[in-house]
């Protein structure tokens, strides 16, 4: 229950993802992220949690290369963020589906833009992922015909279709009701068993973070800094039943306390 799982890293080899002295300043001079260092092992599920304005979403945008660093370096599997897009998928807060495409068409989008697969391969892989997220019956529907939870599942299927090594999720379930959110949390764990991607997950929900993560990074605001790095592990498998286990509740308590300490400090 102490060190985060690290079987994928051999001693001496560089970590899978490495952030060194990462700083981000807005043009008006305000510091969003200040001198952030972080090493992440392959297969880790990292939740970023903290008060609003702590730069957790900004950190995802820096990792994805959508936003440039002010100073410092980020290395993802040996690459700069700009060159690592092929191994990354971004899941946004809203599902960001193309309304003129069907579910199938949306899931195929990433593969289509990459040009590395034939149309048949694309269709096959998209259909497999649609199956995996349980949307096969609505594969030919348009987004406007889907519920919020279903749209998010399409978004997840689209992100996973390109077989990313790194998955960046920016509060993907924030707008959903609690039941749908719990259900999708379990689904994410199931998908992770299939495909060992490394995940950065921004959330406001402590319970969600504890349920999903191998590590929880607590950030403070003004300027954004890492204040706590809490490893999370449970002896048994993570299933819906875990949510009422004493272990789980204790972890939630610990993270909540850490978060409260941050909020009162700033």
């Amino acid at each position, binding site marked *: 229950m102490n060190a985060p799982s690290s079987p994928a890293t051999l001693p001496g080899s560089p970590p899978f993802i490495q952030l060194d002295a990462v700083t981000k300043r807005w043009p008006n001079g305000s510091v969003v992220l200040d001198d952030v260092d972080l090493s992440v092992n392959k297969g880790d599920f990292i939740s970023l949690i903290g008060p609003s304005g702590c730069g957790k979403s900004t950190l995802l945008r820096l990792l*994805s290369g*959508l936003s440039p660093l002010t100073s410092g370096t980020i290395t993802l599997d040996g690459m700069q963020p700009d060159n690592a*897009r*092929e191994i*990354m*998928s*971004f899941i*946004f*807060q*809203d599902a*960001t589906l*193309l*309304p*003129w*495409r069907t579910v199938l068409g949306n899931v195929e*989008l*990433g593969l*289509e*833009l*990459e040009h590395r697969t034939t149309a048949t391969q694309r269709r096959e892989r998209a259909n497999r992922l649609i199956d995996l997220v349980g949307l096969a019956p609505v594969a030919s529907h*348009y*987004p*406007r015909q889907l519920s919020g939870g279903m749209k998010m599942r399409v978004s997840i299927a689209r992100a996973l279709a*390109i077989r990313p090594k790194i998955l960046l999720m920016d509060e993907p379930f924030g707008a959903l009701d609690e039941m749908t959110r719990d259900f999708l949390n379990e689904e994410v764990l199931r998908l992770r068993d299939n495909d060992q991607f490394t995940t950065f997950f921004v959330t406001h929900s402590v319970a969600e973070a504890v349920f999903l993560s191998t590590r929880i990074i607590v950030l403070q605001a003004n300027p954004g800094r890492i204040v706590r790095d809490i490893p999370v592990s449970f002896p048994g498998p993570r299933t819906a039943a875990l949510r009422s286990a004493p272990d789980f509740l204790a972890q939630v308590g610990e993270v909540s306390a850490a978060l409260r300490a941050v909020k009162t400090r700033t």
Partner: protein
Amino acid sequence: MKRFFQSIRWPLAVFVLVLAAWQGACLTFKIPGYILPAPGAVAAAVAERHQNLLQAFRITAVEAAGGFLCSIVGGISVALVFAQSPVIRRSLYPYTLVLQTVPIVAIAPLILMWFGSGVRSVMLVAFIICLFPIIANTTQGLVSVPRNLMDLFKMSNASRVQTLLRLQLPHAVPALFVGLRISSGISVIGAITGELFASSNAVGEGGLGYSITYANSQLQTDYLFALVLTASVLGFLFFFLVVFFEWWFLHHWHESAMKADAE
């Protein structure tokens, strides 16, 4: 069918009432036909001269449609250029605004003088008047793609052309149709305006605009009304054609089409 009649019964009632009042007023006040013909007289003119009307309708329809179709091609092309960079947009947009602000009646005679008094010149007038709404709306649609969608394409290393064809262009289709709706109606106005000046060159062959000037000069006011009626039928026809295509393209996915479905 029953629902259709239910939806039009109120506008229909207004129509009948207005016609009745109009007919009544003409009879009661003995208004001379050359000032205000009664609806009956207009109907008689339509029946009597339907061949002339049809001929004029056909000529003006071709001119307006020609100008409209060219403006669709031209307007979309200009919008695609405008969408490439804010600098291009800022430098050229004010000049397209001229298309909208210069009164078409002022430049129509110039165009006919420069390019001759033929069908092509009339099309050009319709083209000019139709262009701006299409450019403005399509450009707006192309550049107003939500940031997250642009980021999604960026994350997939999408090329500029891919982003344009698979994201910006489909996203702009609803806005394009807003422009087309506006332009469809005014294309007829453009064609008729063009014809008004074409006729003064003594060549203008029989379109609605030409016939309107002719009927006016001959004090054939009942025929004039019949022509005006025909012109607005033409405008409506264009408009509903656009609405049909809009439904055809968008009803699968677009929110506005969904609302129409629900009604």
